[in-house]
């Protein structure tokens, strides 16, 4: 039976500490070439630093501390290192960095969390440094071999050259010596010297993703492995009172049941058997007042809370007297629902408790938290927990949580075999940790000349940080007011207030976090303000962005690229939105029509300034990815609560868009260069909903102030 030896993807190799680990490799680029990787003798591979090794055949393996969940880090981050390294890109392959090593070696991989669109934004400088340091070691090694000064040598395309004597040597030939040398005061390149950064290189992980050989967490196969499925309490916060294992004991394959506070896992020989038994298992629950809640009640409570004072986030001048003397005041309330992440790969984790320690296999955005949570639960020292970070079948924030790991470890403690726990899609969606629900009230006052003379905003939001037990004592969760508190428009006086309001559901990071709801509400209200001022929405925005030339430039470029002033067929309209998050400015125009009561999105034009690009092809895919994810949410996304239970539990009720609904997407880069390296995984998303909703208003003459759009039957005015 093919098990651990499956294809070339799993490889046993010696770690620096001498222990064995399993790591995943993306083979060198040639897709036709099946790079069969056998066990490598430790002496043949040279480690130049924690980030990279070089084999005698010049193969360069670059370790990536962020997790590949589709955003292209297994290609983009190696490009940053390889550029400084002056590597021949064809020699480069990538693998996830070993979190166990980072924990043993004082955080050698620095930041291992994947989130906040931070892979390039945050790690770029130290990755450049790591590549440059390795290059200097290679040069020094070659120079020593030749008995010349390193200053006379240079590196290029995977070789060190000594021009004067026309000698050259491959990296593979000197890597062994280089690994023993040290260098100091190594300088990194400035952008004009980049040779690889900025090129649209194909992704290194693509070939493995077209033939089924890529290994996601759910694809891990170990000898003698059992499978587990779980039935959670349908009401979050509910507890197991009792259950009758006898009712399922004799079902095929069933091995045992493991009790958690909020559910029961059933272990069986195959996952189908486990899931069938888990679903059939009679469980009695203890459910409190959470079981009496409804979405409708939540909505009313959130809207009512808008009328309370809230905590002041930002206050400039006095808005009350300014509003009193305003010629005209507009006020609007906005509402957004909870949203599920619905990553394509349902959550799963494989765990094996052995005499030596604990081994975990999963795709996680936060391997350190996963490892630490497992260590604590199992009572195994962190150094003795091995975690293999597999490919992630989507993450969008959800895969940073450790809930699935904790359950897998609890199961592993009860059985002497490796166990793979998979949440069914239904469990994945119902036991989700959702994008927060929020309500927002905006008020703006205008004078006789239709100038803005006062602006207030109060948001009532389910706090992620409070769910995580982080202190939000001052009444403000900064992640809830992203985009609201730092809004770029110069309205004065202004007052931004906030109220934390949590329900029994649990919330979590969801692609673009606070910006996902705040950009919608704010950018729609800006359009309402533009209407009140009888000004074109782009002109209106520009009027209040005088001190932000970067935003003005993006808007102007968007006005041109989107054909903003060109006539459209009747029943079709354009809407605009602008937002800045994760160091990146993105503005979008959506072209929309209304058919059979529904919104039809034809085209989305984006203008993006993230400063610099590592890989334009991946960057464009990320913007499109954000748009599609945002489009699903804008059109259909909502989690509905009835009697405390989540109603949407699969793709038949939680709709996401399909091929036939995909608009034409045009992405234009307006790169300001310099030191700006903005994130790209999230900024494509926030403007989608407001741009569409603003366009719909032109067609229907009705304002949509809550999502999803599919809650409305749309009609041309």
């Amino acid at each position, binding site marked *: 039976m093919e098990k651990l030896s499956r294809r070339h993807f799993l490889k046993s190799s010696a770690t620096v500490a001498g222990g064995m680990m399993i790591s995943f490799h993306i083979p060198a680029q040639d897709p036709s070439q099946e790079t069969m990787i056998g066990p490598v003798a430790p002496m043949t591979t040279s480690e130049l630093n924690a980030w990279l090794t070089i084999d005698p055949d010049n193969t360069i393996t670059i370790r990536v501390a962020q997790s590949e969940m589709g955003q292209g880090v297994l290609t983009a981050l190696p490009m940053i290192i390889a550029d400084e390294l002056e590597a021949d890109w064809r020699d480069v392959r990538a693998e996830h960095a070993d979190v166990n090593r980072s924990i043993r070696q004082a955080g050698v991989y620095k930041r291992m969390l994947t989130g906040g669109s931070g892979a390039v934004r945050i790690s770029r400088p130290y990755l450049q440094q790591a590549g440059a340091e390795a290059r200097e070691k290679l040069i020094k090694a070659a120079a020593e071999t030749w008995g010349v000064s390193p200053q006379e040598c240079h590196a290029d395309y995977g070789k060190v050259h000594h021009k004067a004597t026309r000698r050259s040597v491959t990296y593979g030939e000197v890597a062994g010596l280089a690994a023993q040398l040290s260098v100091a005061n190594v300088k990194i390149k400035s952008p004009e010297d980049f040779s690889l950064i900025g090129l649209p290189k194909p992704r290194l992980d693509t070939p493995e993703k077209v033939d089924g050989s890529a290994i996601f967490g759910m694809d891990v196969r170990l000898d003698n492995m059992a499978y587990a499925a779980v039935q959670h309490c349908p009401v979050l916060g509910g507890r197991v009172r009792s259950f009758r294992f006898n009712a399922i004991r004799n079902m095929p394959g069933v091995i045992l049941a493991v009790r958690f506070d909020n559910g029961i896992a059933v272990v069986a020989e195959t996952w*189908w058997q486990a899931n069938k038994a888990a679903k059939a298992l009679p469980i009695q629950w203890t459910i409190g007042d959470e079981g009496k809640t409804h979405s409708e009640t939540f909505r009313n409570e959130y809207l009512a809370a808008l009328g309370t004072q809230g905590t002041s986030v930002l206050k400039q001048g006095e808005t009350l007297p300014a509003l009193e003397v305003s010629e005209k005041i507009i006020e609007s309330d906005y509402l957004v629902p909870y949203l599920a992440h619905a990553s394509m790969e349902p959550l799963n984790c494989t765990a094996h408790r052995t005499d030596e320690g604990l081994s975990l296999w999963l795709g996680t955005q936060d391997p350190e938290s996963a490892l630490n949570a497992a260590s604590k639960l199992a009572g195994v020292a962190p150094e003795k927990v091995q975690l293999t970070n597999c490919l992630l079948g989507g993450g969008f924030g959800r895969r940073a949580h450790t809930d699935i790991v904790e359950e897998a470890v609890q199961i592993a403690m009860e059985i002497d075999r490796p166990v793979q726990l998979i949440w069914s899609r239904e469990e994945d969606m119902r036991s989700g940790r959702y994008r927060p629900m929020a309500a927002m009230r905006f008020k703006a006052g205008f004078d006789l000349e239709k100038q803005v003379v006062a602006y207030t905003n109060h948001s009532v939001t389910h706090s992620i940080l409070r769910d995580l037990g982080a202190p939000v004592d001052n009444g403000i969760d900064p992640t809830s007011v992203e985009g609201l508190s730092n809004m770029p428009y110069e309205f004065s006086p202004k007052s931004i207030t906030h109220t934390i309001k949590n329900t029994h559901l649990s919330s979590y990071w969801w692609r673009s976090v606070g910006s996902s709801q705040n950009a919608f509400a704010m950018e729609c209200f800006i359009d309402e303000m533009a209407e009140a001022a009888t000004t074109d929405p782009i002109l209106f925005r520009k009027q209040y962005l005088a001190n932000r030339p970067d935003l003005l430039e993006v808007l102007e470029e968007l006005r041109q690229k989107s054909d903003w002033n060109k006539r459209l067929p009747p029943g079709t309209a354009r809407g605009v939105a602008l937002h800045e998050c994760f160091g990146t400015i993105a503005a979008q125009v959506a072209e929309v029509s209304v058919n059979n009561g529904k919104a039809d999105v034809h085209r989305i034009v984006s203008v993006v300034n993230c400063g610099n690009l590592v890989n334009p092809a991946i960057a464009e895919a990320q913007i499109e990815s954000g748009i599609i*994810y945002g489009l699903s949410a804008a059109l259909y996304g909502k989690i509905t609560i009835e009697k405390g239970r989540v109603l949407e539990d699969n793709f*038949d009720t939680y709709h996401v868009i*399909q091929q036939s609904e995909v608009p034409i997407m045009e992405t234009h880069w307006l790169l300001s260069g310099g030191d700006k390296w903005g994130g790209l995984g999230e900024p494509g998303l926030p403007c989608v909903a407001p741009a569409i909703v603003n366009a719909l208003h032109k067609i229907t003459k009705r304002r949509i102030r809550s999502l999803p759009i599919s809650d409305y039957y749309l009609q041309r005015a």
Partner: protein
Amino acid sequence: MVRIKVNGEFHELEVELDTPLLWVLRDHLNLTGTKYGCGIAQCGACTVHLNGTPSRSCSIPVSGVLQVDIVTIEGLSSDKSHPVQKAWIKEDVPQCGYCQSGQIMAAVALLEKNQNPSDSDIDNAMTNICRCGTYTRIRKAIHSVANVSGSKT
């Protein structure tokens, strides 16, 4: 004991007859290229070919495929050389990649029936979900296969 034919090979398995083909492939045969996304024939991640017809293996019991030629992503080619796989590589389609086995199997079946699908043919045949939003590149890749094979005739 059931006997099924997958990628040209016969397998005899000890398995309950109501087990969906998907789980037979994944858990009994370790053919993990075929993915679980929803279990209710909504997402297409589990798409395989049954006698050439794209089918959602999560919703077909193994008892229904005993006399059937089953082809999974692993059976398309041994070296990523199927024209659709090549097009996927050329257009650099996948992001997370989890939906792509199913997308490719659906695209192969479409192109076998229709060598030059229009955009609306693609819309109708390609109902697989991709949460990463690789749809535009999928469309491009399908058209590029059509163009390559079109130029040969």
